[in-house]
């Protein structure tokens, strides 16, 4: 499911488990990422705001 909603960043391994590319998202991908995270039945995905480094 998540891989269909965010194919730019999520692929599936040979057993169907997601491999997430966790580099920062470009602005146009953020809403897709949020939909993918909401669709995850196990809440395994999380969209995080990038932390500013001091």
């Amino acid at each position, binding site marked *: 499911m998540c891989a269909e909603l965010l194919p730019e960043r999520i692929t599936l*391994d*040979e*057993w*169907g*488990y997601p*491999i997430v590319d966790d580099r920062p998202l470009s602005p146009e991908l953020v809403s897709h990422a949020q939909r993918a995270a909401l669709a995850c039945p196990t809440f395994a995905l999380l969209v995080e705001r990038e932390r500013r480094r001091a």
Partner: protein
Amino acid sequence: MIVSEATQTAELTRSGTPLSGGGAGDPTSETVPAPGLPRLLEGVPAQGAMSLDRHLETHGELPTAKRRDRRGASALIDQIEQAGLGGRGGANFPMARKMRTVASGRGKPIVVVNATEGEPASLKDRTLLETLPHLVLDGAALAARAIGAEEAILCVCESAGAGYERAARAIAEREQLPGHWPRIALTAAPEGYVVGQESALVNHLNGGPATPTFTPPMPFERGVRRRPTLVNNAETLAHVALIARHGARWFRELGLEDQPGSTLVTLSGPLAYPGVYEVEFGASLSSLVEAAGGTSTRVRAALFGGYAGTWVDGGALSRLALSSAHLAPYGASLGAGVVLLLSEEACPVAETARVTRWLAGQSAGQCGPCVHGLDALAGTLEQIALGGQGRRGTERVERLAALVSRRGACAHPDGAVRFAMSAMEVFANELADHARHGRCEACARPSELPLPARPRPATAV
């Protein structure tokens, strides 16, 4: 000589594993211990556990005068910091830093002594509990006092048997000691390779399954009963018992500047006296092997750090010393003090496939890539051992390794991958032979690498 040995070898070996290798005798009569050694193993009894009286005679009274004094308590943490004591559960994490973090957490802290020792090639924590339980209990009491905890939980694994009984007796013996002591509870955790991971142990003590959990929160922030929890390996606490008595400078008289002190090592393989030895960091592997009566066959390779560890080719062993710095160039570490020698008579391909299959079975079963990936990894290695795989097999192992690494909630898949990949590198010739010709003559030999008699999954979910 820089070694000293625990002599209850026959008793200490796990039933049904090749580790026992017949009843070993007592080699200490021929062995001259190093000046300053033994420390932990001082006066280790040939049979049974050291009694409380004997323990206090050997090591002196436990420094208890300052027990109500907060400054006295934190002084111990300072001493441990100056001593440079690293955790002996495998990660070598600075003990003092861990204690300070727990002490400054929110809520009454709690101490957990981790003596589960799920690593099949490690016997040192079991040895400590079976022979010198008061050293571990001293350390637990001192650590509890230093961080302001009022209770400690000593965890052994279900198969501990004598270790459990002797620890229980030792805890009862200590009730005669004067002064306030933290309550020490004894509990048995299910057997399993991943049970000893901090978060799994905490999960179990909280009434859950003994499987690792996603962290954070780390146990030192929120652990047993949601309290800040100091989880320590049994040997680490045994060192605390001696540092509290003799101080940091004494501790540093052995070992290296950046890795001071002595450490317990479980040495197994084709040796006259495999067993648990105490060495100083930086001691040569050759001196340890010599203390164990030497090898009876040529050694093909040595595995450091157990089944989440790294193989080093036999050709390099004569130059090796036992410390993080000496092993780092080989990508290896001592882990929880495990050194396993594989003879040239064994088939390293069959041994690797067999242990990887066992590791796959030890998955907690929580993360898909670990469950499926390690199973596929073991299956591929088994096919390579049978032959006819060619380069395809090797490539598949490499792809699976990349697919599994860092995708679990815990370190188990990464450890299994490290073990398998280092075998692929060190045993490249044997793997190529198997790819071309299939099973070798050595494949039929009894396996050398020890595994528990009845392999069991970590949980009964």
